[in-house]
């Protein structure tokens, strides 16, 4: 909650806090310290929203309306300059000028590959053939990223406005939004937004009296990661089995129903109105040499402030994780940040000062992806993370290419063996060999980038692989076959909570005395460690 005009920010409020707050602050004018944000234990609270690093370091372009408007009311969007860009484009610009602006802004696709949006529009526009389509890719498949969901839920009209402008520039008459079925609220809000826009004459026939007609339909996905890939998405829209197909022809030449099709990510579309409103130069003034504008990241995992942040391109990982994210909880040591989802890689602590843009991330063996930043601390095992991604990709591979289908499974089995303490030193070479084959021989980027999580963890965390293979130890204490639990008799107070939760009844001891774990019975589920209030359960 924010109290204006001072801009005092209160957090984690419950109903019980409210009388006190109203009495103290609103009536007596005394801000309530204990409900304010505290950066870390022992530090003084920060009263003003604008002083809290989580907010002050951010720069809101795409998320500018988040929380400030009711997403189900088009009037509130319009009150904050909504649909002004559309009016500007339709009345005072021709389609080439719109494309010039988008090209000049340097906007690159936010869906993963980072292709220049203006260029893509131009290609589709120049493709011969009528009945062109545009598609909004809202199949946010990267686990750990949820910016597209948030944009649609909090500001659906910005996406619609971007799409109408794009359709005008490209010369498309129909648009599709392909949204994951895991996002029911976002789907509902999209439908509401589309209905309202139609009512206001901002969608449909003869938009704003300009003679330009365009309409949008919404399609739900059904839970397949590969459907985020553009050719597969188009297949899914056509009611086929969504297997990616070979490119060229690119969708810009032959896409949905064989027509030229322009496909962009939600965040890409949502950037368009601001670019048209404020101009290409303004947008291009934010960010780095090659990557312009802002990027929304979802900062999640082992970090104090989880959530979406929007920052200018080129901000360092350190600023995002430590200043905005507030560092690692529980005083644990930072280990790495994983970016780019299953196609990306891990950025180790040594590279934490790296300014983030498309090129730099590529250089260090990761990718921008859709913007999920998963923070990992010393208790995250990097071999296990590699195994996790391989497992993910193994089950999400559509199975069309043998190298992807079989190769990822083979890599998974090797890495799983390493996690289970059955690894051999020669496994590493084999992993690298398989990685090459999968990269070279897969048709779509799912297979083409699948080995990245393994290669990047091998590159930066080779010591962890060695520990698993040679010493049969998991330094982070994650891989079950290589660890055992023990209760520290010094710390244990004998509250017996762990024994109560233990599913195998493997914990014994006298009340108020130190407890012990029967390692024969222990299945290493970790519930004792999770429930211990005194941090007395150790992993060895």
């Amino acid at each position: 909650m924010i109290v204006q005009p001072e801009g005092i920010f209160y957090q984690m409020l419950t109903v019980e806090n409210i009388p006190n707050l109203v009495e103290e602050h609103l009536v007596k004018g005394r801000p309530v310290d204990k409900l304010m944000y505290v950066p870390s234990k022992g530090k003084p609270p920060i009263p003003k929203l604008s002083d809290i690093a989580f907010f002050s370091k951010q720069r809101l372009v795409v998320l500018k309306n988040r929380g400030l408007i009711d997403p189900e009311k088009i009037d509130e969007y319009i009150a904050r300059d909504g649909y002004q860009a559309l009016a500007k484009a339709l009345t005072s610009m021709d389609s080439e000028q719109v494309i010039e602006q988008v090209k000049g802004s340097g906007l690159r696709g936010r869906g993963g590959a980072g292709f220049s949006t203006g260029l893509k529009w131009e290609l589709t526009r120049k493709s011969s053939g009528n009945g062109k389509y545009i598609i909004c890719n809202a199949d946010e498949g990267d686990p750990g990223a949820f910016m597209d969901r948030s944009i649609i839920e909090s500001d659906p009209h910005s996406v619609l406005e971007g799409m109408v402008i794009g359709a005008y520039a490209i010369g498309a008459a129909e648009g599709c939004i392909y949204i994951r079925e895991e996002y029911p609220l976002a789907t509902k809000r999209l439908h509401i937004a589309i209905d309202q826009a139609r009512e206001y004459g901002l969608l449909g026939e003869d938009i704003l009296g300009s003679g330009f007609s365009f309409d949008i339909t919404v399609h739900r996905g059904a839970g397949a990661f590969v459907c985020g890939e553009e050719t597969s998405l188009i297949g899914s829209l056509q009611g086929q089995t969504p297997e990616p197909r070979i490119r060229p022809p690119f969708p810009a030449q032959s896409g949905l129903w064989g027509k030229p099709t322009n496909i962009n990510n939600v965040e890409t579309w949502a950037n368009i109105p601001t670019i048209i409103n404020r101009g290409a130069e303004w947008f291009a003034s934010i960010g780095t040499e090659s990557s312009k504008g802002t990027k929304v990241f979802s900062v999640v995992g082992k970090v104090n402030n989880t959530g979406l942040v929007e920052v200018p391109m080129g901000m360092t990982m350190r600023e995002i994780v430590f200043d905005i994210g507030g560092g690692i909880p529980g005083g644990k040591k930072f280990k790495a940040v994983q970016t780019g989802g299953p196609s990306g890689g891990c950025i180790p602590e040594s590279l934490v000062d790296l300014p983030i843009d498309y090129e730099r991330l590529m250089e260090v063996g990761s990718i921008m992806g859709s913007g999920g930043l998963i923070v990992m601390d010393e208790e995250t095992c990097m071999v296990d993370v590699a195994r996790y991604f391989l497992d993910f990709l193994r089950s999400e591979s559509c199975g069309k290419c043998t190298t992807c289908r079989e190769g990822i499974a083979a890599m998974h089995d090797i890495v799983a063996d390493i996690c289970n303490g059955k690894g051999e030193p020669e496994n590493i070479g084999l992993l690298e060999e398989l990685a090459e084959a999968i990269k070279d021989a897969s048709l779509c980027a799912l297979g083409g980038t699948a080995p990245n999580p393994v290669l990047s963890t091998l590159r930066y965390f080779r010591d962890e692989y060695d520990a698993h293979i040679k010493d049969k130890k998991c330094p982070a204490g994650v891989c079950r076959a290589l660890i055992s639990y023990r209760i520290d008799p010094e710390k244990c107070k004998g509250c017996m909570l762990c024994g109560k939760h233990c599913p195998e009844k493997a914990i014994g001891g006298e009340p108020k005395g130190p407890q012990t774990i029967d390692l024969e019975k222990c299945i290493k589920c970790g519930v004792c460690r999770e429930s211990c209030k005194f941090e007395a359960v150790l992993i060895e």
Partner: protein
Amino acid sequence: MTQEISIKKNSNGKIGAVMVLGAGVAGIQASLDLADMGYKVYLVENKPSIGGAMAQLDKTFPTNDCAMCLLSPKLVDTARHPNIEIITNADLHKLDGEAGNFTAIIDKRPRYIDEEKCTGCGTCTNNCPVRNIAHFEDVDELGKVHLSQEDQQVIEQILAGHESERAAVISVLQDINARYRYLPEDILRHTAKALDIPLSRVYSIATFYNSFSLVPRGKYVVRVCMGTACHVKGGYQILQALERMLKIASGGTTEDNLFSLEEVRCLGCCGLAPVITVNEDLYGSVKQAKLPKILERYQDESVVAESTVGGTE
């Protein structure tokens, strides 16, 4: 077309040619071995193509090797081997003679295409106006759909809702899935007919997407997020704890049909990791120790529901 195979005898009176019946993987391997030993091999197969059942398998037992990866090099070798002649779409009509000197009469069914010129590009199947009857389906059963009146109404209604769509199949399946919480077989058959697409297409879509199930789900579907954020915060432990508590493996349904356990790839609430959902209810920052309480809520409800049913009897 009937082909008669008879070959000149060798000096020892035996014939240096072998006929192999059935071009499954066993027949193919036998043919390759014989051909490598120098025999002329006639490989006769009833189906239009060689490969047999193995070509339809995904994996082989017990090593889980990829079936096609093992088979396809053999297929290519067989087709290219100068000592092997493949006779497909054919039946053995008559066999005369004795060991070392047989005469076989083979009936070859027509293909209506020029085998010499065909490159196997598949364009004809795509453009064929008549739907082919699959080889593997029981022809008598085909087209028999047993729907109750209620089901009939439901599916008609669903289909009517998507009449205007150009590719309605996914939306229709989604609606069926929302109504029944899985995809019943008879309804799928009906859908295939109504939309005029092959049943195999409907199945290939139904089995591709994670959100469809071909077996009935329990009253409550417990979904555990297996996204990255949830993984690093212990999602896997939660899944295993649920497997223990419900005594089912992930993907299974409890015997009383109360709970199904499924995995999902990121629910988009990664800030609350680890996350599980039970039907529409979402639980964030889940701990193993909290799970029994969560499950209990739904178990209790079922007790209530059951007792009211019992009371009306």
